[in-house]
């Protein structure tokens, strides 16, 4: 080995070695201008969101200001509020009211059922139990939505396992009494609003549990202790510390359950009565009825309702703890 190669390797490395190659130069350029990298990374998703997503939403909004010529069935492309006026016809108003009531009760029930589960997972479950919790919550999401709904149809049917269970427990009279109630009742659970409600709660529950659990996990344990230390009973600690601090998570979860219920058109079609929900109304108006403007106006309703809901939640201080 010649002297020169030895000295080449044994020499101390340069204090500020030059950038090597194209990639080195690129890395240096991005390091000096971090915003450039951010811009490059954000551009594709922003274009996607901006053009395809917001753009189509805008097109939808535009459609809702058109109207349909009742005589010819053609779309009249002049701006009018007539289609929105149609929403206030008794039959359409009925659909909106039914959907909102269902979404609200589903959300409330999901919150009540999800809280203990999320609380346990956030405050007590560790290691293996935590993994089991995530698995149990996520597992139902792995199977097809349609398969689950048809499974529920069988469970809730008159010949289904639920009726059988009630019979075995000698509680058939209770089921019959419930089904004979107006509005929530019906011939069997699978053709009643109660059935629709049960399946909605089942399908959307994970979307309530996960944000709630994340929010509860962020509440420091010593705040719970501090509250008890200052004389608050467990109930008072729940109302004054835990609930306000977990509220952003509860609101996030309720946005999911509420908006998903508002927009769904498959569950009420498979399970429940023949009365329509907003999603079904959109589906029939744009399909068989060919009334795209009214379908668009119906589709705007959930957006407006969610906007109102968020505004109210903000007014009530749901995001103060963020």
């Amino acid at each position: 080995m010649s002297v020169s190669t030895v000295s080449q390797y044994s020499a101390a490395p340069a204090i500020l070695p030059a950038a090597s190659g194209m990639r080195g130069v690129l890395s240096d350029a991005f390091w000096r201008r971090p915003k450039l990298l951010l811009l490059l990374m954000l551009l594709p998703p922003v274009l996607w969101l901006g053009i395809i997503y917001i753009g189509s939403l805008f097109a939808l909004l535009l459609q809702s200001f058109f109207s349909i010529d009742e005589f010819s069935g053609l779309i009249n492309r002049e701006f009018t509020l007539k289609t929105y006026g149609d929403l206030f016809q008794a039959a359409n108003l009925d659909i909106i009211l039914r959907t909102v009531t269902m979404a609200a009760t589903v959300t409330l029930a999901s919150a009540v059922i999800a809280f203990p589960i999320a609380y346990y997972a956030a405050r007590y479950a560790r290691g293996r139990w935590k993994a089991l919790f995530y698995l149990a919550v996520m597992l139902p999401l792995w199977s097809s939505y349609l398969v689950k709904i048809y499974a529920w149809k069988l469970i809730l049917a008159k010949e289904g396992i639920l009726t059988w269970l009630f019979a075995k427990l000698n509680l058939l009279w209770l089921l019959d009494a419930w089904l004979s109630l107006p509005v929530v009742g019906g011939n069997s659970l699978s053709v009643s609003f109660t059935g629709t409600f049960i399946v909605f709660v089942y399908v959307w529950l994970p979307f309530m549990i996960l944000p709630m659990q994340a929010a509860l996990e962020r509440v420091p344990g010593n705040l719970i202790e501090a509250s008890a230390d200052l004389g608050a009973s467990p109930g008072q600690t729940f109302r004054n510390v835990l609930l306000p601090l977990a509220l952003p998570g509860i609101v996030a979860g309720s946005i999911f359950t509420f908006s998903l219920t508002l927009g769904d058109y498959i569950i009420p079609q498979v399970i429940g009565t023949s009365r329509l929900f907003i999603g079904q109304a959109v589906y029939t108006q744009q399909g068989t009825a060919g009334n795209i403007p009214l379908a668009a106006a119906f589709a705007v309703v959930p957006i407006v309702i969610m906007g109102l809901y968020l505004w109210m939640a903000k007014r009530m201080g749901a995001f103060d703890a963020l």
Partner: protein
Amino acid sequence: MTPAVSFQKVSRHFGAVKAVDTVDLDIAPGEFFAMLGPSGSGKTTCLRLIAGFEQPTAGLIAIFGERAEGVPPYRRNVNTVFQDYALFPHLNILDNVAYGLMVKGIGKAERHKAAEEALSLVRLPGYGERRPSQLSGGQRQRVALARALVNRPKVLLLDEPLGALDLKLRENMQDELKSLQKVLGITFVFVTHDQGEALSMADHVAVFNDGRIMQVGTPRDIYERPRTRFVADFVGSSNVLPPDFVQRYSGQRRWGSLRPEAIRVVKSTRDDGLSARLVSANYLGATTRLALDADGLRLHAVVPAGTSLPEEGEALVLTFNRDQLHLMDEPA
């Protein structure tokens, strides 16, 4: 007189870990009591046992003579200042301080007035509208103190409350806590791992190690008459002297302790003391701490600033008053 807090053979085990192991303790009403020890020594668990966050595995706990086992924290007239303050982030300062009164059902006007007074007491008047996140560490500390004091607790527990503050602020808060305690006459139980803090503030100090109390006494007792090597070493970093060495000076074969400031260091080669060499010198401002090697025995001495320092490796003679040599109880 009934002790404010009394432990009788109290243990708290977590599985195989004995966090607190058969501790006996009496804290007098109205005193400033410090629990001192390294981390994991059981002092914080003892505090949590008084607060009610932990229940003893065995033993009896009494607060002002009333048995406390099984009583939840919210039914104890005891309040805690938490290590990281634990202020409620969703409430403003006034509502944070008024929280204890709010859950007791006291009306808004009355509890806000009391909270405002408590904020004045900790020298934060007019801060009520702010959020905890808008305050500095020292200010949050005062709010946590006000929030506890507004409930007029019989015992106030402080869990390393000054740990997160910088030196200057810590010294100010030490003085303030001490004078607050004098004015209010409330029993303060203070957990710390800082021996200087414990010695300067407390009426009595309990030194913890491995879940047990090694020694309880006045700061002077603890500092000047440590009973075991651990206490001598942990409190004031005394020189621990082995039995053979002690025997030469006192005639008794016992472990001894000698405080660094009791050692006089003379530049000399005469034979009238303990000959030693300087290993290193640490400049501490008001004093300089010398590490010395006396025939294999490592000793520390403290000399005041301005003393001319010996060179490293220079031959020195160490002398001390024999009555400064303290004999410890710990068997040889």
